[in-house]
């Protein structure tokens, strides 16, 4: 049985197919058709809803793609849809702003934009264009060209007034407390089950008892198996209620990130030490996905084009794997064995990720190259972690995504740099070595020739940035 608030109404579901997405639940089970399906793959944002969660006696609102959200993961939360914004016959201020600014044409993407704008307004104190672009990067509009929607965001954020959600917040907090999970919950229907443990120990036990289960964190990749590949997921274990796996702890030596931490929640700690990690996270899918997808999930699914692994590998991050009562720590690059093959054993799961803190003389640079700047998958993702002392490369950890079947270190390139004087000719040797490290493939994102040349050019760019800080090297700096 799971419980959640549909706006202010308590919903209790005893027997519901755990494979059903929030989008289909809304449209097909509840007949609420305001939320639209544009792609069912989390790429267009037409299905955006807002989920409220308890956070220190307040409700924290975040935008999500309902097409990638299994209903089970709403347990204990508040689901707000476009139908909930109009109050007492009056449009909500974000809706009115969209009308006033002529922000809709065909209107099909509009409910999604409205919900992203609603979350933006809730989380902002005034208009900020960069925040607006970030909040809306996961919402595609084919009609307007976006300018009027940015205007609407400005109006909505500048003219923010207390709304019904503010007025009802104390009651909502009380309602959410009343349904806060107290024990492992389960949603099932027929043979399909989704279990929702609250502790790492319970997760370990349940996983050991159900080793065939699929772990559900954000679901941004897993849900595609249902919505795009039409598979059934008979057993899922949802890890999003395990508070111990959602913590970010920063010590003098390391940044420890629970595997179930949403990518948005990883941003502050990683960006502080490594600004390029922050820049990459800004371009990592969309805000809806980052609100939902987790750092552990981005590692766990072992995609050759996941954006976090190359950076984590270059930084020398480690992962803690847990199975039953035992844990082991693994350098992250040892986790990836071959295409979608990992070192993870049966019933073993990633508990946390440990990233070393920045050291003196360490230069970390990361680059993502894709057809579209935002919400696209990398053709090449590169991370360079160099410790340079007195012009000599003390250590070099270099890793790439998109260049091999797994996110992978560039051993020959590293060897060419390590111990060498960092200069142009040495960089050219290291570039040549990249051709030994990688034999990339051609696909619809890029040709193998382009991938290799870009990988080499990114090393050249890294060198240039270290040598001549005043040279402009990034178009993404233009905002």
């Amino acid at each position: 049985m799971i419980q959640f608030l549909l706006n202010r109404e308590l919903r209790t579901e005893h027997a519901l197919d755990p494979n059903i997405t929030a989008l289909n639940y809304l449209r097909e089970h509840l007949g609420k058709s305001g939320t639209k399906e544009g792609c069912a793959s989390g790429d267009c944002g037409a299905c955006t809803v807002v989920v409220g969660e308890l956070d220190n006696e307040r409700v924290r609102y975040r935008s999500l793609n309902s097409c990638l959200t299994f209903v089970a993961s709403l347990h204990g939360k508040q689901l707000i849809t476009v139908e909930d914004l109009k109050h007492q016959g009056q449009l909500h201020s974000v809706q009115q702003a969209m009308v006033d600014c002529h922000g809709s044409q065909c209107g099909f993407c509009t409910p999604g934009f409205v919900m992203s704008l609603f979350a933006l307004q809730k989380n902002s104190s005034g208009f900020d264009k960069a925040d607006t672009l970030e909040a809306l990067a996961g919402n595609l509009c084919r009609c307007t060209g976006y300018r009027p929607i940015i205007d609407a965001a400005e109006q909505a954020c500048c003219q923010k007034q207390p709304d019904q959600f503010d007025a009802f917040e104390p009651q909502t907090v009380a309602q959410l407390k009343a349904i806060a999970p107290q024990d492992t919950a389960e949603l099932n229907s027929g043979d399909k089950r989704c279990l929702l443990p609250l502790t790492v120990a319970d997760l370990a036990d349940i996983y050991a008892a159900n080793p065939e289960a699929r772990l559900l964190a954000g679901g941004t990749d897993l849900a595609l198996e249902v919505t795009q590949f039409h598979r059934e997921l008979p057993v899922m274990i949802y890890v999003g209620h395990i508070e111990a796996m959602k913590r970010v702890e920063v010590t003098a030596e390391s940044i420890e990130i629970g595997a179930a931490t949403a990518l948005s929640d990883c941003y502050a700690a990683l960006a502080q030490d490594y600004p390029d990690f922050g820049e990459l996270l800004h371009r990592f899918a969309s805000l809806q996905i980052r609100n939902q997808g987790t750092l552990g999930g981005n590692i766990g699914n072992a995609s050759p084009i996941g954006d976090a692994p190359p950076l984590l590998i270059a930084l020398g991050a480690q992962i803690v794997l847990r199975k039953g009562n035992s844990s082991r720590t693994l350098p992250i690059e040892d986790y990836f064995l071959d295409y979608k093959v990992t070192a993870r054993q049966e019933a073993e799961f990633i508990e946390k990720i440990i990233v070393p803190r920045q050291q003196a003389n360490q230069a970390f640079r990361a680059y993502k190259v894709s057809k579209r700047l935002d919400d696209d998958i990398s053709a090449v993702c590169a991370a360079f972690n160099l410790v340079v002392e007195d012009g000599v490369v003390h250590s070099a950890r270099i890793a790439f995504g998109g260049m091999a079947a797994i996110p992978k270190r560039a051993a020959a390139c590293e060897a060419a740099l390590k111990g060498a004087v960092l200069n142009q000719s040495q960089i050219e040797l290291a570039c040549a070595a990249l051709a030994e490290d990688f034999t990339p493939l051609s696909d619809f994102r890029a040709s193998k020739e382009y991938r290799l040349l870009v990988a080499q050019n990114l090393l050249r760019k890294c060198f240039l940035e270290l040598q001549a800080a005043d040279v402009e090297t990034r178009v993404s700096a233009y905002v």
Partner: protein
Amino acid sequence: MSSHHKTSKTQAELAELFRADITTGVGKSVKHESADKHVSGEAAYVDDRLEFPNQLHVYARMSDRAHARIISIDTAPCYAIPGVAIAITSKDVPGQLDIGPVVAGDPLLADGKVEYVGQVVIAVGADSLETARKAAMAAIIEYEDLEPVLDVVDALRKKHFVLDSHQHKIGDSAAELTSAPRRLQGSLHIGGQEHFYLETQISSVMPTEDGGMLVYTSTQNATEVQKLVAEVLGVPMHKIVIDMRRMGGGFGGKETQAAGPACLCAVIAHLTGRPTKMRLPRVEDMQITGKRHPFYVEYDVGFDDNGLLHGIEIELAGNCGYSPDLSGSIVDRAMFHADNAYFLGNATINGHRCKTNIASNTAYRGFGGPQGMVAIEEIMDAIARSLGKDPLEVRKLNYYGKTERNVTHYHQTVEHNVIHEMTAELEASSDYAKRRQDIRAFNAKSPVLKKGLALTPVKFGISFTASFLNQAGALIHIYTDGSIHLNHGGTEMGQGLNTKVAQIVAEVLQVDISRIQITATNTDKVPNTSPTAASSGTDLNGMAAKNAAETIKQRLVDFLVREYKVTPEDVEFRNSQVRVHDLFLSFEDVIQKAYFGQVSLSSTGFYRTPKIFYDRDKAAGRPFYYFAYGAACSEVIVDTLTGEYKMLRTDILHDVGASLNPALDIGQVEGAFVQGMGWLTMEELVWNGKGKLMTNGPASYKIPAIADMPLDLRVNLVENRKNPEDTVFHSKAVGEPPFMLGIAVWCAIKDAVASLADYRVQPNIDAPATPERVLWGVEQMKKLQQPAKATTVGAEPA
């Protein structure tokens, strides 16, 4: 709605109201009629309608072969799955199988052979979509593979065409090419484009009692769906009703492509007697339906030392996919726009319609025009680079004249040409000359990032080139309470057509738009409609509605003249009031009186575009009633290490005549510009070696997102320049023309790359200019620079 009680206002009050203007007539930035419903989620699309009881969901099984003979289809396994009602193949279609819009070639279900990956082979009706999908996948289809043609150049060389080639010719291009002081030859590939309407293709069909069908569908072309549903069922058109309230985007993708799902639904509804619904999942929509035509272009151009054209020959080869669909007219329109705003002089333009084994390419905003324009803009750039001139200088030199040098290669005289003034205005307002200098200075000291700038014009011909389509109908009822029901043959896909037509009716009848109820396009209200396409929606349907409103208004005037014994000049409608000599009546009062006076308060309206004619055999005439103009100046910054870029600024000046609704018009201009920019930059269609579309969803096919719009976007409409032709309130069409403003971005990217070879060589960057293509352009420039400082080199074939 105001009260209709007669006693509510005094004569003085009515007189005061009469003196005010209506606020929702033409020229006002009235909000989109559905805006409040869009933002609240209340606007209902076909999939949002309450479903009919006992409904079947229809799922289509696609071919996984590009070209194959179908040896056998076994649908027996489909029926083993509980919930399946029916599985149909081409044999089960009761009427005509082919649903080709102009000529045959598009079987509703594959008939003996498949010609592309994605072609629909069988369709299953079941009680849920998932069941229908499972069942369709359970069918056993045996194929014998045949050799596919997947390359447009291959098809061109083999003359593998869906329709015959066609030529536009003026003067003697061959002689001029030989005698011109300078000559360049080159070639270019131009990519296609997925429409990516946010709402995928959908139809919902209910059988009716006379063997007919009520069809709710998302289509730009209600009458054609009606005709095709009738044909596949083998019933007269009067049995079929199409209802179309709104589309979640169209862009040409629902001009012919909506018919397939509607017809499949109708056939299954006919065979089972049950209501049906078919909604294409995105990945299947992108594989089944056609897109913008990719083109391959070859050119040969002669010019003088200033860059003035002497003679030109252009081969335009459209990649039509497996069937003709609308490719005849689309390649024609590419040919009609191979001049853009330039006087070609002696020109031979050949258009070819290449047949390949991919989905049948179809209408898309601009309808071939953009591809023709990209070709000539590439040529302008290439000429300028070869002469070391600023491309804008060459462009301006070649503009059509006002009174001379003004005959097109299809022998239409270009009248009322405003591109000179618009270019001058935009050059000044965008500070082109200074920014050109600043950019050269920036590029000289920036080793990695390079900026580029381009100012390009648009001249786009307005009218369907199939002249008979330039007609429209409308229907207006005024009810006894003074409320107005408005219907017309156009379809609302987001462009604001319903809003503009309502503004027109409001203007004619001098009432507030809130009095007018806009209703779904419906084939039993207005028959025999043309598609809402060719930017013509408002020009045609607005005029038809104006005609209907004027008919009723004339009846009211005649009635008041009789009733009050006044002259027609004594009767004046204004701001929901009517002055009859010195008496003021409210509009609803007049309607009441007219009703009791037995006056008909309902009228149809009709319009046909004047002046146009075209003799295709002679390739001469006046296919276009008028031209719409625009110009854009774009600045970009390019990363020469990765090929990535960012749009820094775009200034646009666009001509909509006397705007009916500036807010909606600017919305069209901006949206079209960004869509055009996407087409030429990041939107790349990639097929694998077996003809399967690999970019078949938004994860792999990238349309512009919010951060892709220029950081600084300045859009203005040309002011105080009414359309000299007698169009509806002297406005101009706006749907397609601004799409081609996006060409400025493509040219600016190439300008940035050309900076690497001192602007003397045109980089070979096909469209779309993805980061990869840009980087290869950079490499081309770097190689030229390596051996020696490059001197003038002609453009080489790509």
